[in-house]
């Protein structure tokens, strides 16, 4: 037995390896990304980045059909993309254990919405487990695979950001490994795997039978347990919220749910009957609370604990205080210190190749449909380059809709779609096909930075490397674009501001769809080149702030420029030599030739 401090994601990867998972597929997405990154490092496993979550789940299904234990991981919104295979997979089932790890992001730390994916388990009628810490995350991987195999359906392991990214101690016992079933290979079973209506009609009743069996399991599983204490207050909770409740209400009785679909109704009733006042504390939607209410039991929850944002010990304490049952006084709320509210939004990195394009786009007075990825960071001042961000690949299709709808309107602004390479591979290709097929007129810009950047730099079909760093074919974006029928397609260097501006203007002037690929690798892939670092020549700088409009984290304002007449106070621009990557965009926007090489 060995103790190790692991994140929830690391624990899932370890659990999957120890449980004999052989195949894993996913698309990167915060907060789930590190699961596959870690899993890929184990010996004799196959792990891949798929172009999107739908593909990844289908790969996983094909694998599990052979009886091999398989892992699919996704962030919450990724499961929307994979919902199509999921809903029918729930009918077919699979002989091999298939674990769907879904990482929700309450609080939207790095997401476009905070949907509650527990409803997917209920929707698909598949068992769902929810860990409260890394130890449980590891244990639930094996339990989930066993349930999957026993009940012929995938199991969902639902995590949240605070479980994925919190570290806690895990006891690792390599000697105590359960038997891994031997895969029997692919067996033809037409009525099970071919979901024509006639066969699907045969499967649906089995889904309902399975749900009834799972209802028995959830009553007896050790993951649903009652911690009896004072019975005046009873609290039902799951996931990370269990930790907050234990911290805040140490004297209350707790029904800790680790299996949350199906819910253990008998156990809930037994618990409810023995406590004076029953609460449910859960993040986001009243998923558990509503079910309990349908059972006809008196329960309180969302009246005191918000549906918005992630919960925290503070929010849980406030809720119980409002309910009048907090056994101690909360300390007076301390105000945030004066000056402690300065905004510090995340930014495009110094040297980011997106900056040249986004700065230029801003000058085009165009409508710009943006997409998911680092480029969303350009929505804030000073760049403010995009008008929308919805979901992966939506920029192209939304731009197409906008163009079609604007026909005949007074507004003649050009319409752009701007998205990254990985986003294009994920869901942009079919959108572009739609534009060409339906004679659209969208100016598409694919910001090809040769990596999946926002999630921390993962390989993708364009990089020439797999997740496990084997060399592979690198998809040529221009070739795809031309094959889709978009004849006007070319590359440009986003560090060449003049060239980029000119290219954008040409595309606006051109009547018809076009694709411009701004090609430059992500700055995170490089070390700084000291010879490329720029500095400000204070003899030439007039403090016009043009360079500051780039929103580069390396550029700041320095000393006051000595004043000749009674002019308004101006300051020298200043470039931080420690962080400048020498992209030279500032040099190109400077009209006073005040930005020069440090080395000169």
């Amino acid at each position: 037995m060995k103790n190790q401090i692991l994140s929830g994601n690391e624990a899932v990867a370890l659990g999957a390896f120890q449980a004999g998972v052989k195949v894993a597929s996913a698309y990167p997405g915060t907060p789930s990304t590190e699961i596959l990154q870690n899993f890929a490092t184990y010996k004799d496993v196959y792990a891949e980045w798929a172009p999107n979550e739908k593909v990844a789940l289908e790969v996983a299904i094909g694998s599990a059909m052979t009886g091999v234990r398989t892992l699919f991981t996704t962030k919450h919104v990724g499961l929307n993309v994979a919902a199509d295979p999921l809903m029918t997979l729930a009918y077919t089932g699979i002989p091999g254990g298939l674990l769907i790890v879904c990482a929700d992001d309450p609080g939207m730390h790095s997401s476009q919405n905070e949907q509650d994916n527990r409803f997917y388990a209920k929707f698909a009628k598949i068992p769902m487990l929810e860990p409260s810490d890394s130890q449980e995350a590891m244990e639930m991987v094996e339990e989930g695979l066993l349930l999957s195999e026993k009940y012929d359906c995938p199991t969902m392991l639902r995590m949240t950001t605070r479980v994925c990214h919190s570290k806690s101690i895990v006891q690792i016992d390599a000697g105590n490994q359960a038997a891994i079933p031997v895969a029997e290979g692919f067996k033809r079973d037409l009525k099970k795997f071919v979901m024509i209506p006639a066969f699907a009609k045969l499967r649906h009743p089995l889904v309902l039978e399975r749900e009834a069996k799972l209802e028995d399991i959830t009553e007896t599983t050790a993951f649903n347990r009652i911690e009896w204490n004072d019975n005046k207050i009873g609290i039902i909770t799951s996931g990370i919220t269990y930790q907050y409740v234990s911290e805040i209400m140490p004297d209350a009785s707790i029904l800790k749910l680790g299996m949350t679909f199906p819910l253990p109704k008998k156990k809930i009733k037994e618990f409810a009957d023995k406590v004076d006042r029953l609460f449910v504390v859960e993040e986001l939607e009243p998923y558990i609370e509503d079910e309990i209410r349908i059972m006809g039991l008196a329960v309180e929850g969302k009246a005191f604990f918000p549906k918005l944002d992630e919960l925290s010990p503070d929010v849980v304490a406030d809720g119980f205080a409002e309910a009048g049952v907090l056994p101690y006084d909360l300390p007076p709320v301390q105000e945030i210190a004066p000056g402690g509210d300065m905004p510090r939004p995340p930014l495009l990195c110094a040297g980011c190749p997106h900056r040249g394009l986004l700065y230029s786009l801003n000058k085009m007075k165009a409508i710009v449909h943006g997409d998911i990825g680092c480029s969303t960071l350009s929505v804030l001042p000073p760049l403010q380059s995009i008008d929308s961000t919805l979901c992966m690949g939506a920029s192209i299709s939304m731009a197409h809709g906008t163009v079609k709808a604007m026909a005949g309107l007074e507004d003649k602004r050009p319409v752009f779609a701007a998205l990254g390479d990985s986003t294009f591979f994920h869901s942009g290709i079919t959108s572009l096909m739609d534009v060409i097929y339906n004679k659209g007129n969208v100016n598409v810009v694919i910001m090809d930075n040769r990596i999946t950047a926002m999630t921390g730099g993962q390989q993708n079909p364009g990089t020439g490397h797999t997740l496990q760093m084997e060399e592979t074919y690198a998809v040529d974006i221009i070739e795809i674009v031309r094959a889709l029928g978009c004849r006007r397609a070319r590359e440009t260097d986003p560090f060449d501001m003049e060239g980029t501006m000119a290219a954008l203007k040409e595309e606006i002037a051109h009547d018809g769809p076009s694709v411009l690929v701004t090609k430059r690798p992500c700055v995170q892939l490089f070390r700084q080149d000291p010879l490329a670092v720029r500095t400000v020549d204070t003899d030439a700088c007039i403090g016009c702030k043009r360079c500051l409009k780039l929103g580069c984290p390396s550029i700041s304002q320095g000393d006051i420029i000595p004043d000749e007449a009674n002019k308004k106070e101006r300051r020298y621009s200043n470039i931080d030599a420690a962080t400048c990557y020498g992209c030279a965009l500032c040099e190109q926007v400077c009209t006073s030739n005040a930005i020069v090489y440090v080395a000169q």
Partner: protein
Amino acid sequence: MTRENTKKTVNVLVVGTGGQGVITASEILSDVAMRSGFDAKKSEIHGMSQRGGVVTSHVRYSENVASPIIMEGEADILLSFELSETLRWLHFLRPSGRVITSLQKIIPPAVYAGMGSYPEEAQTVIKQRITDPIFVDALPMAEELGNPRLVNTILLGIASAMLDLPVDTWEAVIVERVPPKFTELNLVAFDRGRDIT
């Protein structure tokens, strides 16, 4: 009646901006706590914070830790890599809590876009609210020692002097975590930090 800290949980909030080393520092601290026989938990937010945004990492240890997140008003130590970030999280400290802050200022470009101003009075505000804050000009100190990345180890050195965790465990974890050629330098930086208190 107020909430009692019956389990004597130690709460350290490590803060700074993306890329400064906040996560590494909290990794080291939680590892030291675990190896010293405690239950330890650590929580932070990845993702957007990597792009120069606000980064916080919560570290808690005791015999048995439930929540990985520290409650407002219950942090024992606020360990900060950037001066204005110290202000942002000051309300997390207990009345008896300690501040260790680097004097480094990182002015966000948002300020130049007119979205706010840098709190120039930060040190004064901190002194008004907190007893014996430790201000350390860690970046020049680290550069003088030979590497700006040593800020991390200097700050941990200061924190270590306030925390009841064995020095040799600290040193063992640091040695494991840094590249071999920087071992000596990091141990010197750690000692330099310990000497400050």
